[in-house]
């Protein structure tokens, strides 16, 4: 008997139903009462806040009676077909409850922020309907007790991501960005599906508990089958969590409203891949090659995206590449086998990256309003148009500095501990497998670059002279409290968030032990020795501080000019500004050949040539030809008919008499 039976964990499904009810109500309002902003805000924020209350209750129940095995509540039998039996089941355990808290908590704050940010948008009700639906699916993803239920959430959040990226769909590039995100994610989802098929064919189940119970016997550790399963699962993660080579959709996803970027494309949905790896940690621990691929791809992405972040001018693009880079860190964590560290970074990153995005949203909101008053059409997201905003927006600036210090890894903020734990685990594992030393090195360099580009963002946005025009300057004010309030709460969480998994104490690590215990047998000990740990920590803090210091010395916000007067970048800087031209490369190598294949071969060749000409028109011509031959017999001459009739009668008689 699970200790959670009969407790609040039985009601975890409410965290799905409440936002879903919010979606239904707001969806109805979007159709019939789009102007009812007050009702929409109340339902939108209220349903998610209520889900957060449920999450807290479930968390308290789990804390009061920590279960040794996940508590699964099967709601109904969903797909009973032959050997396959999938039920719509929810799973409450230490991992899912952490995710549940983060998802509903951060969502509540971002919903609140959205009330201010989207206030003047005509699609207000539609926006909150989509956002509620997103929370619904995200909770399904987190609570699902088997792969198919998780996949429903996985696809659902992808749908909401698509809807919200293309929220302002009348602008073509925004609709295109949504399409791009959707299509790139499909590539990864194919991997997820294949992984599910493989798991079923080898283990005969898709249930999490059953899978992990059967895996040690059913699959050979390090064998081809488990490696293939892990790699295909990771393919799904690469799409959803924007890793090389499928990261290209995430920077474009910034076309959506900024709170959406904060919620979906920074704090929750894109971390689903990390959650999936942590959830299936046994499979990855049994497949060292796949784990090395995870860590390697993560490290490469962390470094690669960080370099692009160095030269972006759009404030949201910097944060987008920063997110890609930080997701790389999380994959380094789960790749080296430090699953708790990966989840830890996921949680802290949700706090400080949501804070950064909301801060950027607050800046964009104010810039946009100023341009609205002055009737000038300039880019409200280009940092070259900003500068010195700290004087006008003190709370936004302060809270964003907290997040910047956290992401740069300055102690004692949350990001310091989580990033340090990941790098420490990579370093320790590097002692026996030098490959992980390379991963660690990439991580360290990326940490330095992270500090640098974040300091650059802050300096160009909030410090130095103000570069908005004289017409706009009087309209620069702090955003309303409903927007700064969530910023302050997130800043507080960013400051204290590291406490959930302090080194040596490791509360989160111990909390998650029931779920990672099985894989410990396949992994070396990852805790660095105390001396090494302190040296690594000091080193990481120094690297972060060095990045910040170098940025303040090297960058001159005074020298910046608005974009239209900026000089052309040259050399490597230009390559960075153009994002290594990866999009152009994909366009040449994949998109255009595919379009050519579709247009010339499949459309003009196969469809128009074979199917239309030979198939459709060909069969019509055949029928017409046969009909023409038949109609020659139809002479209208009764005599001719009688001839046939007599011949037929004689033939029948001959046959009968024989």
């Amino acid at each position: 008997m699970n200790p959670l039976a009969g407790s609040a964990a039985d009601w975890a499904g409410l965290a799905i139903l409440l936002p879903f009810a919010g979606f239904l109500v707001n969806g109805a309002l979007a159709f019939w009462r789009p102007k009812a902003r007050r009702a929409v805000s109340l339902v939108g924020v209220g349903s998610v806040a209520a889900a957060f209350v449920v999450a807290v209750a479930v968390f308290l129940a789990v804390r009061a009676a920590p279960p040794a095995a996940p508590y699964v509540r099967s709601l109904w039998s969903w797909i009973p077909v032959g050997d396959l039996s999938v039920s719509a089941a929810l799973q409450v355990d230490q991992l899912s409850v952490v995710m549940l808290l983060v998802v509903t908590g951060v969502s509540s704050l971002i919903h609140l922020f959205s009330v201010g940010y989207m206030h003047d948008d005509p699609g207000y009700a539609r926006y909150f309907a989509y956002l509620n639906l997103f929370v619904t699916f995200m909770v399904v993803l987190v609570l699902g007790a088997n792969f198919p239920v998780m996949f429903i959430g996985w696809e659902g959040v992808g749908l909401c991501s698509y809807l919200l990226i293309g929220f302002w769909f009348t602008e073509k590039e925004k609709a295109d960005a949504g399409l791009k995100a959707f299509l790139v994610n499909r590539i990864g989802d194919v991997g997820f599906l294949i992984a599910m098929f493989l798991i079923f064919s080898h283990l005969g189940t898709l249930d999490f508990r059953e899978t992990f119970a059967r895996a040690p016997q059913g699959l050979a550790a390090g064998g081809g089958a488990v490696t293939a399963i892990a790699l295909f699962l990771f393919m799904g993660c690469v799409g959803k969590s924007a890793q090389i080579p499928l990261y290209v959709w995430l920077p474009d996803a910034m076309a959506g409203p900024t709170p959406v970027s904060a919620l979906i494309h920074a704090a929750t949905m894109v971390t689903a891949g990390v959650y999936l790896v942590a959830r299936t940690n046994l499979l990855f621990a049994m497949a060292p090659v796949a784990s090395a691929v995870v860590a390697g791809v993560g490290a490469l992405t962390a470094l690669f995206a960080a370099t692009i972040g160095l030269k972006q001018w759009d404030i949201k693009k910097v944060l987008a590449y920063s997110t890609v880079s930080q997701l790389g860190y999380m994959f380094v964590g789960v790749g080296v086998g430090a699953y708790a560290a990966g989840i830890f970074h996921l949680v802290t990153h949700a706090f400080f990256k949501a804070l950064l995005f909301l801060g950027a949203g607050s800046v964009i909101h104010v810039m946009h309003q100023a341009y609205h008053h002055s009737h000038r059409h300039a880019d409200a997201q280009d940092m070259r148009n900003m500068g010195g905003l700290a004087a006008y927006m003190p709370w936004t600036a302060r809270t964003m500095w907290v997040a910047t210090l956290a992401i740069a890894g300055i102690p004692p903020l949350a990001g310091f501990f989580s990033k340090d734990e990941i790098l420490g685990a990579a370093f320790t594992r590097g002692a026996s497998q030098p490959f992980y030393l390379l991963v660690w090195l990439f991580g360290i360099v990326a940490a330095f670059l992270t500090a640098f580009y974040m300091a650059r963002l802050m300096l160009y946005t909030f410090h130095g002279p103000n570069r908005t025009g004289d017409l706009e300057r009087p309209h620069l004010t702090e955003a309303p409290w409903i927007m700064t309030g969530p910023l302050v709460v997130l800043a507080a969480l960013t400051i204290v968030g590291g406490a959930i998994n302090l080194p040596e104490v490791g509360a989160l690590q111990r909390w998650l032990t029931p779920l990672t215990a099985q894989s410990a047998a396949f992994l070396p000990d990852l805790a660095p020795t105390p001396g090494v740990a302190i040296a690594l920590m000091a080193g990481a803090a120094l690297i972060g501080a060095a990045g910040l210091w170098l940025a303040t010395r090297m960058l001159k916000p005074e020298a910046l000019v608005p974009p239209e007067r900026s000089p052309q970048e040259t050399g490597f800087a230009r390559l960075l500004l153009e994002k290594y031209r990866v999009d152009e490369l994909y366009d040449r190598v994949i998109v255009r050949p595919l379009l050519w294949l579709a247009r010339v071969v499949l459309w003009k060749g196969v469809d128009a040539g074979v199917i239309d000409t030979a198939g459709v028109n060909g069969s019509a011509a055949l029928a017409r030809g046969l009909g023409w031959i038949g109609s020659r017999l139809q002479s209208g001459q009764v005599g001719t008919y009688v001839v046939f009739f007599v011949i037929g009668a004689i033939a029948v008689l001959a046959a009968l008499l024989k």
Partner: protein
Amino acid sequence: MLLGPSLLVSAILFSLGVVGVLLRRNAIVIFMCIELMLNAVNLTFVALSQRIGIEGQVFVFFVMTVAAAEAAVGLAIVIALYRHRDTVNLQSINLLRG
């Protein structure tokens, strides 16, 4: 008694009727050929009734009745055709040609 010769005459009459229907073009001649075939059948009935029983002779009366009715309808059609097309040559009547 004389069954074989009777059936032979009947077969010759029937074949003449068939050949007439197939080869002649005049609707009235074709009509007469059909009558010829009917009467060939009547002859068969009568010839066979000596072996089988009276039913064959009875049936002949039915055939004659039907043939009379058919002659009435058929001639009416031929007259209507002639009024319409000024000919009873069936080769020039091919409206149902495909």
